[in-house]
């Protein structure tokens, strides 16, 4: 990059960090269609292919559906494939996403989290990726550009593991991460090469060993293949932990595996977050701690597989848990809240849990908003579990609402 500061540290955006991570991972094929706010990822990658610094085939496709299809074709001949998208583009890939996970094709995709139309909006929330939670893709949510780059490298390693063979989606909050600039440490190519071995898969078309790929099944066998897919996703948890540890040893940065908890050890009130808002919440926790409030924070890194045991271990015995959702599953509540509550349901004594819907369509979530969330949690505990309180709350609504 032009803005190089030292040999390894550069000042780049989240999108550029992903592109550099992809180059280090040496994919054979990139097939992608540009969409705001992902565009810079695929622009940089096409430039790298053009200038020869990335020896890959860049396939210009006419749509996201074709991008996913081409990535599957590449994966089917044993190639390492990457794609990237956002929002409406992700939904246009939906059919292929189930196909890729069912076919056990470890494609890696970057998704720039952006709201879904209508109303049309290019700004961020998590409604795009959360609506694809059941597509059989591993989903990680990163907090900053460094984590975006590091997870791009880890993603291929985890997805391609023989016990996993499951596609992997790296989520970056649109604009907040994709378009803001940070100092990012770039790992050595030689270290990445030894960390990330050449992709090998049992599911490969070849002339030497012809295969019938993607066959159909009768009801006699279909369920077994679906169970197998589920089992591989559950088994991915161990691989996620070991890969994160090995990454830490090799590159000096690790992220805690499935979750990252902050000040949870003695916490009374814990907020559960995903993605970039975690950085804001860390500051809110520090502020509250300085005022004597025992605030803690759980950053959900992975939403699939879901860190149920990790959530129970980190926050099972607190007084109250808040779950921040940049999402509503219309007619119920935030999807992350539903998932966290189902993890807590296994406890005999459960903390109070409240859902905070925030940041839809790119609405800002400030430190003050998050401090307010902790005050709400405190109040709910003071009011008492038996008294009724609003289970789902809307942060920073611009108008009054009934009920």
């Amino acid at each position, binding site marked *: 990059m032009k803005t190089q500061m030292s040999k390894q540290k550069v000042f780049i955006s989240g999108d550029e960090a992903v592109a550099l991570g992809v180059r280090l991972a040496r994919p054979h094929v990139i097939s992608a269609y540009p969409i705001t706010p992902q565009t810079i990822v695929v622009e940089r990658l096409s430039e790298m292919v053009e200038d020869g610094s990335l020896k890959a085939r860049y396939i210009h496709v006419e749509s996201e559906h074709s991008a996913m299809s081409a990535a599957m074709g590449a994966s089917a001949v044993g190639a390492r494939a990457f794609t990237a998208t956002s929002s409406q583009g992700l939904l246009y890939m939906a059919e292929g996403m189930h196909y890729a996970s*069912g076919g*056990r094709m470890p494609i890696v995709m970057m998704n720039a989290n952006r709201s879904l139309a209508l109303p049309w909006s290019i700004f961020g929330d998590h409604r795009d990726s959360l609506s694809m939670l059941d597509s059989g893709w591993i989903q990680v949510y990163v907090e900053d550009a460094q984590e975006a780059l590091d997870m791009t490298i880890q993603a291929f390693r985890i997805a391609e593991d023989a016990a996993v063979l499951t596609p992997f989606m790296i989520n970056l909050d649109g604009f907040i991460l994709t378009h803001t600039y940070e100092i990012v440490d770039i790992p050595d190519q030689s270290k990445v090469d030894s960390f990330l071995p050449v992709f090998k898969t049992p*599911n490969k078309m070849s002339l030497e060993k*012809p*295969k*019938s790929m*993607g066959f159909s*099944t009768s009801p006699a*066998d279909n369920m077994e*293949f679906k169970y197998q897919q589920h089992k591989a996703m559950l088994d991915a948890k161990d691989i996620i932990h070991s890969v994160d540890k090995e990454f830490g040893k090799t590159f000096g940065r690790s992220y805690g595996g499935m979750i990252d908890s902050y000040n949870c050890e003695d916490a009374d009130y814990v907020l559960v977050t995903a993605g970039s808002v975690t950085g804001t919440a860390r500051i809110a926790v520090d502020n509250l701690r300085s005022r004597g409030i025992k605030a803690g924070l759980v950053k959900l890194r992975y939403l699939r597989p879901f860190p149920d045991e990790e959530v129970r271990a980190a926050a099972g015995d607190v007084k109250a848990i808040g779950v921040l959702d940049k999402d509503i599953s219309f007619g119920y509540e935030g999807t992350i809240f539903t998932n966290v509550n189902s993890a807590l349901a296994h406890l005999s004594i459960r903390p109070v849990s409240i859902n905070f819907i925030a940041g839809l369509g790119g609405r800002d979530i400030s430190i003050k908003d998050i401090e307010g969330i902790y005050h709400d949690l405190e109040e709910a505990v003071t009011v008492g579990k038996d008294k009724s309180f609003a289970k789902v709350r809307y942060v920073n609504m611009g108008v009054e609402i009934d009920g």
Partner: protein
Amino acid sequence: MLKPEIKNYVTPKHIRDYPTGPSFEAGHLVSINAGWRTFKPVVDINVCTGCYQCYLLCPDGAISKTDNKKIEFDYSFCKGCGVCAHECSFNAISMVKEELTK
């Protein structure tokens, strides 16, 4: 003539007995597959010129070449679609109604 053989199907006992994802070696046939045929193609080998147009066009690969440079049908896999009879330039193939046999 290289024809696929019917292999013995071993019913999986453990989830490990399944392949990883729905992919397996090509040509692994475990049963004949022609049950829904109502008309079957029959070739008049005196009219057949061995042009192999039908051989190339059969969607199921159920036609093979014989030593005397004619063709024969594999009725274990022919679905009776009639493409061969339709495409034969010499009208050497006719579609004959299957008899109901038990």
